[in-house]
């Protein structure tokens, strides 16, 4: 199964690169769907089929549908492709690419060079369980307040969006 994992991980990396470098928005979204499917395959090969199926249902089956839906309505033509090509000139991406490569090198150094707990700087590692415990323990009130704020934003957005629908 190790081969399956690395194979699908490679597919995910390549297709994600194509998402960025593709100049046609719909083709880029198609690559993004393939990338999500590849990540789902990674979950399958790691023995987490439930997470893999949810990845396909939620991301590839629902969220990406809305993405494609919106992009489809934008009436994109040849001008957009030209514009995207212009943005993809080497002069515009070399700087960020060099900085990102430096970060990648650091990540690899931390992953392979140091102790395998990931606490490379001598501090303790905070895993997701610890985050969850503190979110629903001492900070419970803050989480509830944040959710109230989000709910208020949702109600406001709904209110702003419905002003035209006042016909009898």
């Amino acid at each position, binding site marked *: 199964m190790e081969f399956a994992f690395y194979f699908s991980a490679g597919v995910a990396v390549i297709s994600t690169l194509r998402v960025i470098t593709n100049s046609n928005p719909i083709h880029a979204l198609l690559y993004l*769907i393939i990338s999500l499917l590849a990540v789902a395959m990674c979950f399958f090969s790691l023995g987490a*089929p439930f997470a893999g*199926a*949810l990845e396909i*249902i939620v991301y*590839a089956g*629902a969220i990406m*549908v809305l993405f*494609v839906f919106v992009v489809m309505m934008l009436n994109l033509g040849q001008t957009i492709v030209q514009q995207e090509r212009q943005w993809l000139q080497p002069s515009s991406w070399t700087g960020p690419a060099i900085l990102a490569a430096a970060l990648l090198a650091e990540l690899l150094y931390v992953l392979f060079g140091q102790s395998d707990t990931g606490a490379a700087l001598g501090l303790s590692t905070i895993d997701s369980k610890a985050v969850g415990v503190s979110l629903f323990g001492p900070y419970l009130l803050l989480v509830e307040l944040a959710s109230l704020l989000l709910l208020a934003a949702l109600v406001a957005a709904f209110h702003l969006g419905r002003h035209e629908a006042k016909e009898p």
Partner: protein
Amino acid sequence: MSWLTPEVVEVIIAVLKAIVILLAVVICGALLSWVERRLLGLWQDRYGPNRVGPFGAFQLGADMIKMFFKEDWTPPFADKPIFTLAPVVAMSALLIAFVVIPITPTWGVADLNIGLLFFFAMAGLSVYAVMFAGWSSANKYALLGALRASAQTVSYEVFMGLALMGVVAQVGSFNLRDIVDYQAQHLWFIIPQFLGFCTFFIAGVAVTHRHPFDQPEAEQELADGYHIEYAGMKWGMFFVGEYIGIVFISALLVTLFFGGWHGPFGLLPQIPFVWFALKTAFFIMLFILLRASVPRPRYDQVMSFSWKVCLPLTLLNLLVTGALVLAASQ
């Protein structure tokens, strides 16, 4: 013959079974085009195709010859790779989903623990066929059809998942074989999960874009919707894909709500395949009868029916089922 170990033989038998099931499903889907037209003719007081062969049974062959030899034309303004990809997705998504259907105790392609979730995933991916077809055709009618299809499918998939959660909560498993076994020991789910059955059936019709939910291709308004620019075998793949969807949803209904390969009251357990095929055929007939008898609703009615009637019903069903399961376990 040293390489012919028992494991290899097992693998070969499993692959052969899978191929037989694949061919059977595709042939059923193709034959349905003739069956549907004959039945529509019967129910609407006309003949239907009755010239080629006995009762017109070779009409399928004539249609296939026509489709294969038609010019496979791609419009010059279309987005070629996506235009070609769309019919492939249309045909393969629900065909792949067929692997989770247990046909008899010994026949079935894959025994997945996440069987139902796999079906949801494939149903979610099947939307892309219509969306990509509509967008890449660069045609107003096709785009409108694709917009309708995606909005409709996303809305109906919301409660399609919820409708089946009652079944899953009672069985405690996503595995379809577990669900069939549970029904053999208890009642068939059509009785305890009647609301779930009704809503899932409606969602199934909507997800396969069958009449009365064929808004994406409503002839009167959209001329043919998303596949207006398609010709030849590419159109044929959409066509066969729709019938494969019907066969698949019927088989899933039988598996989930009508006891799969078991006969009523444990009758005649020696013929599991016959029971399965009979019940599936019944639901396929129901799909066709719906098309023959029900008028097509307006698009906004379709959408508000989904969100205002079906979604609350499924939530209610899930709530009551959850409460009963909880009460029974204590």
